């Protein structure tokens, strides 16, 4: 293993998982999850977008591609978000656009996560020269500027025919797996020498079996975070490719290509805000929902980040002693036992050292 700069950076990240309670505490761990309001807000928003992606194309009042002789119209009772310079209904385009945007991003996120599991965990668990080669590969893909590379690939993809969703998803995934692989590698490095992994290895389990049944279950939270992050990346990239017109804009109504049309139609200069503000806001909200989920997962993985999620007001409300974060101690407020699962009787204030003791 090479001790490069990046490895040192990950050492602190690897720590929180050490502090995870053992599997016996699973129930109380699950019960802690809903405490974070951020994660539920994020999940709610995301659910809304998923429903939009499923039902949107059917709800569209017009065919989004239908061209009628009318030039850019303001929003009206008939066309809620106005019409493009070709007379297409923008509201219908927006409704139809959720599906390709979400499908490509989640597909890319899924493929990239699988890639990062295979490469990251293999590198971390197997070690040796395999680790050196795979880490190098991941670092190369981290440093290569993704969008310009995708533009090179995208501009050579055959035009005219609709570029297949699967192909775009795969190509985006190929540029987006490296971050997850790096984090997973660091995590599995710290897991490799734990007793339960050692025990599995000594009892003669095959490498792939140890990885799938011993390592991966302990990385679920990290995996979730890396998946959400990759989807976020894929959304940004897909929208950017659509906006640039690299992907054939006429074939689907992804939000990126609506923005491309808007740019081509001089929407900003002419003040046609109803054309480009709605898709932009939709993308921003979708991104925010994923970022919120990731925020929640972060706090779930690392208890220190969670502690100060409680403001002074809430602390008073739940009857906790007034806390002033002090140096050297990260106060963790536990709600009264009745409010949560009630499975443990923890003191009101736990110092970090005590959290460490639990592990």
């Amino acid at each position, binding site marked *: 293993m090479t001790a*490069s*700069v*990046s490895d*040192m*950076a990950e050492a*602190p990240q690897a720590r929180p998982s050490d502090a995870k309670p053992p599997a016996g505490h699973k129930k109380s761990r699950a019960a802690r999850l809903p405490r974070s309001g*951020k994660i539920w807000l994020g999940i709610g928003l995301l659910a809304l977008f998923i429903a939009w992606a499923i039902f949107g194309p059917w709800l569209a009042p017009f065919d989004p591609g239908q061209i009628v002789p009318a030039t850019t119209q303001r929003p009206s009772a008939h066309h809620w978000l106005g019409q493009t310079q070709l007379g297409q209904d923008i509201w219908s385009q927006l409704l139809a656009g959720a599906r390709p945007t979400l499908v490509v991003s989640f597909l890319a996120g899924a493929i990239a996560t699988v890639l990062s599991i295979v490469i990251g965990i293999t590198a971390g668990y197997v070690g040796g020269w395999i680790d050196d080669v795979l880490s*190098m590969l991941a*670092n*190369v893909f*981290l*440093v*290569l*500027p993704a969008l*310009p*590379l995708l*533009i*090179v*690939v995208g*501009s*050579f*993809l*055959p*035009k005219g025919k609709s570029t297949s969703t699967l192909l775009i998803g795969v190509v985006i995934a190929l540029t987006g797996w490296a*971050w997850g692989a790096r984090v997973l590698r660091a995590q599995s490095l710290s897991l490799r020498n734990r007793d339960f992994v050692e025990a599995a290895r000594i009892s003669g389990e095959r490498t792939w079996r140890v990885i799938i049944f011993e390592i991966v279950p302990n990385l679920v939270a990290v995996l979730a975070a890396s998946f959400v992050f990759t989807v*976020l990346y894929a959304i*940004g*990239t897909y929208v*950017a490719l659509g*906006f*640039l017109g690299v992907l054939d804009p006429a074939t689907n109504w992804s939000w990126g290509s609506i*923005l491309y049309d808007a740019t081509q139609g001089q929407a*900003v*200069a002419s003040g046609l*805000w109803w054309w*480009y*503000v709605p898709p*932009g806001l939709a*993308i*921003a*909200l*979708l*991104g*925010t929902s994923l*970022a919120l989920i990731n*925020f929640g997962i972060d706090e779930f993985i*690392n208890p*220190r*980040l969670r*502690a*100060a999620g*409680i*403001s*002074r007001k809430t602390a008073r409300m739940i009857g906790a002693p007034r806390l*002033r*974060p002090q*140096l*050297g*101690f*990260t106060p963790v407020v536990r709600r009264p036992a009745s409010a949560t699962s009630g499975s443990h009787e923890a003191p009101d204030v736990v110092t970090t050292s005590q959290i460490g003791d639990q592990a």
Partner: protein
Amino acid sequence: MRLLVRRLFFYAVTAFIAVTLDFFIPHWVPGDPVQAAIASRAASFPPRATASLYAQFGIDTHAGLWGQYAHYWNMLLHGDLGLSLSQYPATVTTVIRSALFWTIIMVGVATIISFVLGTVIGTLVAWRRGSWMDGVLPVSTFFQAMPYFFLATVLLLFFSTDVHWFPDHGGYQFETHTIGLNAPFLWDAIRHSILPVLTIVGASLAGWILGMRNMMITVRDEDYVLLAEAEVLPTSRVIWYAARNAVLPSVSSFALALSFVVTGSLLTEIVFSYPGIGNVLYNAVLGEDYPLVQGIFLIITFVVLGANLLADVVYVFLDPRTRQEA
């Protein structure tokens, strides 16, 4: 120093892979890129350019694949990236050169502002947890999730189209100013770059804030911080000790961040019609100017590698452990 040597080797490998990808991608995709490029253009395409294109893509030439690859490297090492299709007699190198200057200055300044500002805010947010400053996080998260070009459009709408505080496009007023080290030009260039810089800072700030905050929270519990506090050192001094250590991961995660910043900056430039690489790239894509697109990818990669090397040097400077190893 061993660290730097190792990083140099890594960057060399990365550059090699970038060049190789750049060469092979046109070979992997189906169809004849040259015909596709020429078909969409006027019939009066000079045969010399066509021949050069075929040579560049390595199609229908007598050399084998490896011969073409060697030829490609040879061209590259002589600083030749081929001819631009959309601005025909100009070579790719000349087209890129003038644009690169604008991008590096603007994006460089924006990235540095964003990094410094984000790190300072992140430090303060971590130090004053549970106060109103926690509200910074959700707000900045929203900004981060917003696509760069959308933020750019909104800024353009408010500050340029509506109130005319800032010019809405370009890098300087080319009718009235000449490029050079004269005060009116510099002032005009700064005025033109305020909105793009604001966009990049606004969209990338959250990442630095969050990274620094999370790291500060971890570092805060270290013994040396406790000791510093116990010695009743001034708070600013204690924060300085903690921040110096907490900033290291931010510096080393520069690579990842830079890839995002580059993506965002390209799009920002397009919205503001800033005369940088992003705009050239946009026009190259619209004009199906393949050699230019490929050349820009290579140049951006090299610049990103250079910036990473710079971050490594800063890291060695900041972290005594890396120096001790040598």
